[in-house]
């Protein structure tokens, strides 16, 4: 049995690596000025411009409130066949993110509570199951 592989390990980490549907933590950052952002970067704070030691990594919970959803019917990129649904989520920890709704999620509407999980999206060449972040209605 091959281990699971995260598609974007720079953006999130799994609480448990052995199963699809694992709880996920987002890799954000916090500035000395109090600004919380996602994803973590060391270039500088968008709000105050501080850089270097002022910016530190911080884990963000993948829970939040849905701001908007849009099901995409037409998308030129063949690696991302339509339809799929994009959601805009205000994370409880501050930042607003835009990401994909889980394919098996019930329909969503603004105002609903949503949460992110790692979902199996396929296998890579080494036979590992690839996991990526997907949101759905909070359980």
């Amino acid at each position, binding site marked *: 049995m091959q281990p699971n592989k995260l598609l974007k390990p720079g953006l999130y980490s799994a609480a448990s690596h052995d199963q699809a549907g694992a709880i996920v933590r987002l890799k954000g950052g916090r500035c000395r000025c109090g600004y919380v952002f996602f994803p973590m*970067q060391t270039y500088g704070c968008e*709000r105050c411009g501080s850089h270097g030691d002022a910016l530190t990594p911080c884990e963000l919970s993948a829970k939040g409130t849905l701001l*908007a959803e*849009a099901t995409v019917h*037409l*998308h030129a990129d063949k690696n991302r066949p339509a339809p799929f649904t994009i959601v805009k989520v205000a994370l409880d920890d501050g930042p607003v993110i835009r990401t*994909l709704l889980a394919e098996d999620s019930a329909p969503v509407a603004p105002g609903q509570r949503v949460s992110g999980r790692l979902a199996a999206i396929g296998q890579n060449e080494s036979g590992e199951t690839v996991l990526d972040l997907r949101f759905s209605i909070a359980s």
Partner: protein
Amino acid sequence: MTRSLNELRPVYVVGIGWHRYQNPSETPYVELGLTAIRAALADARIEWPAVESTYVATALLGMASGRPMLRHLGATGAPLMHVENASASGSTAFRHACIEVASGISDVALAIGVDKRNPVRRPDTGIGNLAEDAIVPFTHFALLTNEYAVRHNASTEDIARVAVKNHRNGAKNPNAQRQQERTLDEVLGGKKVSGSLTSLQCTPIGEGAAAVIVASEDGIRRLGIDAGRAIRTTASVGRSERVYPPGAGFDAALTKETADLALAQAKLTPKDLDIIELHDAFTVEELHYIESIGLCPEGHGVRMLKDGALDIGGQCAINPSGGLIAMGHPIGPTGIGQIGEIVMQLRGEAGPRQHGGARIGLAHMVGVGAVCYVHILQR
């Protein structure tokens, strides 16, 4: 001490010209651009050597594309600058042409926008993202549409009426890419794109060119230009995105900030505006931006639209050209074409789409949500 444009010497638009915006074709960009420039020169009744400086707006053509075009007007050696600022490239070029003339460095400057549809290359910042490859502009605006509809209890039909109005205006504009009236059923029944957006609610990216010539009073006198057809630029403001509260619509917030500064510069209120040409690449934007500019309180845009207040002949004609939805959005030309449309309207030369008695017009463009330009023109 800093100054705004209207504290410098007055600057006037004296010539306007287009190559029709159209579906992608084999026509070389050089031909598109030269057609617009020659039309603007003819409109101003001046010759090419009178132009002391040129600003070329393009986003999709490639490096320094102005030179191989301008040489065919007779190479005068006058300075030339290329401007790329996404959708606002043309607005940015116009602002800098105005600044150059207002400062006294030149008496006559040209802003020309020309583009053909080409793949967009996005810069790699080195910062990862969750799903940006899945979010193209129409999906960004589909998300905003969903938010607007829920927050203001607006229906899909309400928002789609923007497209009906703008197609109706575009049908009367010989420079427009889309020149066909559309019913609400046609707009709603079209191809589904993203969220509730259908293809007739989205701008068609095509090709085309627009040119405007700006001049000082000295230039107008020296060249014998008809001062009665000259339209003054009374405000020019450029801004870029800041950090707004989480969840705030940055496109609308940036527009509000920019429009407020422009209105203050021209000492006007939103009620004074007869015409607005704004960035309606997607229907919901028009509602967002008329509210941001201050024409009505937030969420009241639909009511104005339904009452006909935004029509030609209404309280304030929004996008009499047809806007980006019907006139088209070739990128480089768009912001310059807006200026041309407003000038035509303020001169009273807009023919079947003339907004009666128009004296004051505002042009607004955003570029990937990150930059915003607002100009005010007055007769």
